[in-house]
Structure formats: C-alpha cells, structure tokens
C-alpha cells in the first residue's frame, strides 16, 4: 500500500463519507441505537425542501448571485493590492498587512455588532448590495493573501521584458501576468465564493431578514432539530460548491 494509494483513499473517504451520511440521514426514519441502518425510509424531508413553503429556490438564487459577485469583486480588488504587497516596500506596510488580517484574527463577536452599526449609519442594511459589501470584509483579506503569494513567485522582470518588447499594459496583463498567476487566481476566486456562500452572521445582521440566503435556512432547521430536513438542506447547500470544485479541477487540468 503506497503512500499515494493511502492518500487517495483518505481523500475519497473524507469527501464521500459526509455526503453519504447526509444522504442517508435525509431519507431516514427511526434510526435508533443499536441499528446500523435506519428502520424505515421516507422522502418527507425532500418533499418539503422541494415545496414552495421551504422558500429554497429564491434563497439559492440569492446566495449564488451574492457569492458570484463577491468572488468577482474580491479578485478585482485583490489583484492590484496583491501586486503591490508582493513587489513594493513602503512605510506602514506591516501595519496595513496587520489591518488586513484583522477580519481573520478577530472573533465574530468583536466586530459584527460594530460593523452593523456602521452599515446602519451608511444606510447599507437590508439590501443585497449591503450584504455583498459585508461579505467582502472576510473575503478580500483571504483573496489578497492568496494572490500575494502568486505574485511573490512571479518575477516582475517578465512583465518588464514584455514591455521592452513593445507590449502595452493590457497585453502584458493578458499574455504574461494573468496566465502565470491563473491557477492561484482561480483558487482565490473559488475561496472567495466559498466564503460568501457560507456566511451566516453577517448576512443575518446586515440583511436584517430581507435578504434570505441558504445558510440562514440551513441554520434555522439545524437549531429547530428536524434532522432529516437539516440533512437535505445541507446537501442542497453543498451541491453547487462540489460542482464548482469539479469544474475547477477540469479547468486546472487543461491549464496544467
């Protein structure tokens, strides 16, 4: 059993086990000690999730839209910022870096109420725009961090050379820089998407109940103790992200 085989098995198990368990729970009834399998099966949870009363479809669309926009904006903001952080030294750089890491370091309680207060004062609450903005707060630091690494490993001389050969700025970006950092860029975008997709506390506070995303519905049922519906909702929540991962893997293969 080579290390590679073990690695592959561990990976597959780690990925599939939660999905399989969730699926079984979403269909199970009367699964008590000491049974290894449920005593009965039922589609009640999925019937509810598929019904209009669950209000899942609008929530999925809202979450998708917000996460996609957050990913796009995060990357757009992070690109120039990462470039500077990787290549340029300037006074106060350490301080800026620290400020940037703040959303990563500070526990939610320290900031959320204060952030809510600020958003209220700027009239940004209870709108999708406000939620997108607040999701950027955790997403941008991660994205900048990831892209800084990409730029660090990318020699600025490449860009300089391309310019001496007569390429304009846009061409330099398109043919030299972006292809070099593309894998890191794609991964950063996916992570930004994931971060927005999973936000609960910020959405609840800033959205004020007017913006309903998938995590809100999931957490509601998780606290409400309906096991089967929670499991079904968790699978609905995971499906798009797994799809994104698979698409990314295919994309990376083509660009390896």
């Amino acid at each position, binding site marked *: 059993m080579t290390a590679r085989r073990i690695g*592959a098995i561990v990976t597959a198990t780690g990925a599939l086990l939660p999905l399989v368990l969730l699926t079984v729970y979403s269909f199970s009834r009367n699964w008590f000690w000491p049974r290894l399998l449920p005593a009965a099966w039922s589609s009640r949870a999925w019937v509810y999730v598929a019904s209009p009363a669950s209000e899942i479809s609008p929530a999925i669309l809202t979450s998708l839209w917000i996460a996609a926009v957050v990913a796009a904006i995060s990357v757009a903001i992070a690109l120039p910022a990462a470039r500077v952080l990787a290549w340029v030294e300037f006074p106060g750089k350490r301080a800026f870096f620290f400020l940037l890491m703040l959303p990563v370091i500070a526990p939610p309680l320290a900031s959320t109420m204060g952030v809510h207060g600020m958003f209220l004062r700027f009239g940004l609450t209870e709108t999708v725009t406000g939620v997108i903005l607040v999701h950027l707060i955790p997403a941008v630091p991660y994205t900048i961090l990831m892209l800084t690494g990409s730029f660090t490993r990318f020699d600025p001389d490449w860009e300089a050379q391309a310019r001496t050969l007569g390429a304009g700025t846009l061409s330099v970006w398109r043919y030299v820089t972006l292809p070099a950092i593309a894998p890191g860029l794609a991964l950063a975008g996916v992570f930004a998407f994931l971060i927005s997709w999973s936000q609960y506390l910020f959405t609840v506070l800033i959205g004020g109940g007017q913006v309903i995303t998938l995590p809100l519905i999931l957490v509601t049922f998780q606290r409400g103790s309906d096991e089967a519906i929670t499991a079904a909702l968790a699978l609905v929540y995971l499906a798009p992200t*797994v799809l994104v991962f698979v698409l990314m893997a295919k994309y990376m293969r083509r660009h390896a």
Partner: protein
Amino acid sequence: MLTPASLVLVGLFAGGVALAVIQSAGFFAPAGEHAFTLQHYAAMLLNREFQLSLMLTIAVAGIATFLSAAAGVALALSLRRIASRWPILNALVQVPIAVPHLVMAVLLINVLSQSGLVARVGYGAGFIGAPNEFPVLVNDPYAVGIIVAYVLKETPFIAVVALAMLARIGDEYEALAATLGASGWQRLRHVTFPLLAPAVVSASVIVFAFIFGAFEVPFLLGRPYPSMLGVVAQRRFTSIDLAERPDAIALSVLMSVITAALVWAYLKLMRYQIGERPTLF
C-alpha cells in the same frame, strides 16, 4: 494601487472593531453605561473561568492546528503526482472545506457519541453491550471531539494550499538534490519542507486564529465547563441581562489581542527559522 476599495473595507471593519472597543470600555447605552471604565476587562481577566478557558482554548487550537498542518502536508505530498493524473482528486480533497462546521459537528456527534455509528458497530461485533461502555469521545474533558472536527475540516484546507505550492515549485529542486545524492527523506527535509514552509505557515496561522475565536463547534462538541473562549463570550453576549453584553465584547477584544500577539510571535519565530516572509501560495 492598493485601491481605495481595500482601504474602504479595512476602514469599515476597523471602524466596527473600534465601535466594539468603545462599547466595551463603558459606553454601552442599552445597559445605561456612559462613562469610561475598564471594569469589563477587569471582570474578564480576573475571572477564574476566563483563565481556565484561555488555557483550554490555546491548547485545543494549538493541537488541532499542528495536527491539521502535519496531516495536510502529508496528504499533499502523497497526492501530488496522482492528482495530475486524476484531477477529480483535487475536487474531492476540497469537499470537506465546503462542509459547514455546524454540519460537520452534528455528523461527528452522530458518528462518535456513545450511541453513535461507531459504537453501534462495536455493539454488533460484540465489543460492548450498552452505550455507556463506549469511550467518551464527544463533550469530553480532552476535547477529542472538537479536535477531530477541526482536523477533518482544516487538513484539506492546508493540503490544498500545499498542493498549489507544490505545483508551483515543480520538481526541479528535488530532482537536483537527488542527483547530488540526497535520499528521499533528506530531500523532504532540506528541500521540500523549506519551500513549502511559507505557505503552510500562513495557512496554519489562519487556522489557529479561526479555531481560537470559534463558537459553534466548541459549543456543540465541548463541555459547559470549562468551555472554550468563544463559547464563554457568546454565553455572556446572549444573556437576558444586557449588562453582561459589554463583558462579552471586552472578552472578544481581548481574544483578538491575544490571537494577534500569538500570531505575531509565531511569525517572528518562523521568519527567524525560514528566513522568509510567509505568504499563502
């Protein structure tokens, strides 16, 4: 080029934190506080529960981070070559990252509790006769459940970071070392690990900070006393007595400061060790 946008974000967030600091320093109107005071900070620091929880939190976050980093690097090393042949493995390794912590915690309870799936397998195989004969793995004094939850969730994260770094570095340095006569283990130790270090260190810092301030997993999988700091803060925050809220905010600010200090010390140490500023890829 640092763009006004990132400054705006930083400003919004830093503004939020500043507001929190002000509220914790005695200016919390709903509880009728209008004067500067450090009583909330004192109440926290001198509290025995805080001290116990602080030690518990540092221990759990430290152990979980270390295990995740080790396992993540090991996983990445074992996958690096076959991942290019079977890209689906890249997708699979990322799946646990997408599973919400809350869901992972509930799944672990269902699997590891005394009447959980593993215990039932034990019962079926005749090892135990009743739930209370199964070892206590969740809500236990050694935070086993909490650590397992975080290791399962954060190992893939660090593995993904390490895999991306490995793809970027390529084989050249290791191939070179091999031609110079270095053995597999020597190559790992003197070539691969130092090259991976900046990215893995950064990722570990993020993982540590996250676990340190977390609430949901420690709440579901831990004990009421002593509990991790995130739980202590949340409990005070949601108390029906609004006067306890500033205590909770003070505790959160303290937690941020402690995390920042620990991270700063760790990065200084790493910089000294590896001579390079940590980055994430």
